[in-house]
């Protein structure tokens, strides 16, 4: 915001309160209530005005508090923000960031979804979901700079965690830097199995991989960082080495990221001896924690999936 006066932040509770998760704290004080605008609960107006502002040369960051709320304004997102560049034959650009929070923290069916598969299915949107503070800052800087619309889904579980509690990516430089969108991160190298994941399930995957090593299973953990673009080069290089793929996805199982990753590997004619998908088994996210833990990938279910994929279940 300091570098580019065209960058705006617009949404519910982003100004005075600084966001319900504190992500925009202090911005209104620093940049004024014109550039950091508190809006009514009017998501269609927020996203629609983002389109108008982009047409005026601004770079709006629109906050949709929870990704689940996208249902009330998906029209502007997929009919205007995602399509205007295309429909105009490249004449107009939509440098908009839709910043939103996803992921399970025990909040039930309407406040817990990830939905990156939904956005990824709609052409014209880049879809980013960081797993740690370092990436979150660098990817956000790239998203704001991007001339394409970016849906930026932050995991609520990670937003509520303190930086020092992260086992990786906890050092965040004060100065500006970028992490390129579309480049996956090999968080942990391994030789027996490729585990592909992102966002909130990266950390439990790394822990599960550490546990697996004790049993003699070497797991390579890849943090995709973004669903669109999907860095298949990094995934393919890993699977060529391991021959086995496990996709861990906190989004719904069917018609989503996990099938996409596996299909693209098959299209590349990469030899795979074992495939497994661990994702939310096509049920809404339940309310009670005991139910949620049953359907959302966690360290325990990831460990079991690793053992199953390498045939040591």
């Amino acid at each position, binding site marked *: 915001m300091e570098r580019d006066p065209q960058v705006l932040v617009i949404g519910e509770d982003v100004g005075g309160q600084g966001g319900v998760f504190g992500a925009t704290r202090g911005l209104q004080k620093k940049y004024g209530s014109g550039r950091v605008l508190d809006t009514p609960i009017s998501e269609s107006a927020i996203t629609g005005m983002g*389109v*108008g502002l982009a047409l005026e040369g601004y770079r709006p960051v629109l906050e949709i508090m929870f990704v689940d709320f996208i249902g009330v304004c998906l029209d502007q997102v997929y009919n205007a923000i995602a399509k205007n560049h*295309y*429909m105009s*034959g*490249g004449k*107009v650009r939509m440098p908009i960031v839709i910043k939103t929070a996803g992921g399970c923290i025990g909040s039930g069916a309407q406040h817990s979804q990830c939905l990156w598969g939904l956005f990824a299915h709609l052409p014209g949107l880049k879809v980013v979901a960081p797993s740690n503070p370092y990436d979150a800052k660098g990817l956000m800087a790239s998203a704001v700079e991007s001339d394409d619309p970016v849906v930026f889904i932050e995991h609520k579980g990670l937003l509520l965690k303190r930086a020092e509690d992260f086992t990786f990516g906890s050092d965040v430089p004060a100065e500006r830097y970028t992490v390129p969108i579309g480049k996956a991160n090999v968080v942990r190298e391994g030789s027996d199995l490729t585990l592909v994941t992102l966002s909130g399930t990266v950390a439990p995957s790394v822990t599960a991989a550490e546990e697996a090593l004790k049993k003699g299973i070497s797991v390579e953990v890849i943090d995709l960082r973004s669903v669109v673009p999907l860095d298949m080069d990094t995934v393919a290089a890993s699977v060529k080495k391991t021959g086995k793929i496990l996709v861990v996805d906190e989004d719904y199982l069917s018609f989503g990221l996990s099938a996409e990753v596996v299909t693209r590997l098959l299209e590349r004619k990469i030899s795979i001896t074992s495939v497994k998908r661990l994702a939310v088994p096509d049920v809404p996210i339940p309310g009670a924690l005991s139910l949620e833990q049953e359907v959302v990938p966690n360290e325990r279910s990831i460990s079991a999936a690793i053992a199953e994929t390498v045939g040591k279940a």
Partner: protein
Amino acid sequence: MLWMRHFELACLEGVPTREIHGELHTGVGQEAISAGMVGFLSKEDAMCSTHRNHMHAIAKGVDLRAMLAEIFEKSTGICGGFGGHMHIFDPSLKFSATGIVGAGVPVALGHAYAARLKGNQAVAVAVVGDGAVNTGAFHEAMNMAGALSLPLVVVVENNEWAISVPFSASSATETIAERAPSWRAHGIRVNGLDVEEVANAFEAALARARSGKGPSIIEAMCYRFRGHFEGDADMYRSKEEKERRRSEDPLERTKETLVARGLATLEELNEIEKSVVASISEMLASVRKDPSPSGADATRYVFAE
């Protein structure tokens, strides 16, 4: 008005010949509203239009040939053939259109907020039909424009029919204009067949917006002479109603006014009309010779980077 009428008639030629695919929405009969907006807007003022957008674009100054080529699915079209007739974009004039009913008003809200940020005198104009006023997006945008006192002018072309459902059956209020105060907006209902009535209301609304007094709604009453789209069986309106309402042609009305005031003779007006018809016919013939977009380009422009 003549350019608008005959542009629409030229578009109609492309339907039976299958040069235009999909649904084509024309505004024949509603010309006085667009004509009433001509000349008031600069390049800095934005206009967000609808699926029935051709005449609004003409009022904003969008190039007719480029638009006709877009509608006839040519690579020379204003969007290279990627948009089609419902999605006309001309960023140099801040003109855009959407095929989603009501969705243009929040976009205009964004333009209006940009004018506030830039501190200039620009106004955002959203043109919608009467169907759009019952969408949530319309209410959200009007409320925010009122709350922030933004320079937004919403022109509602009330042709009394949202496809097959009459306005009287779908609105809790008798008029749309009377809803305006609930959004701290100014509301006025005008005869949309009368260019001067529209122009006067539009000028006043722009002045109100430019002086920081906030949004306005102009409800312009009119009648859609043709079906909702070309091919619409239009059984929901009686033959008697259609004939009666079509006899109140805004074009004829304007001609009569000009003659009655001694501003032009009927002969002169007929000569002007003839030359407009000839120009558009020439333009259409030329557009028809343009190439279609290459299929190989279909995957371009999904992303800018």
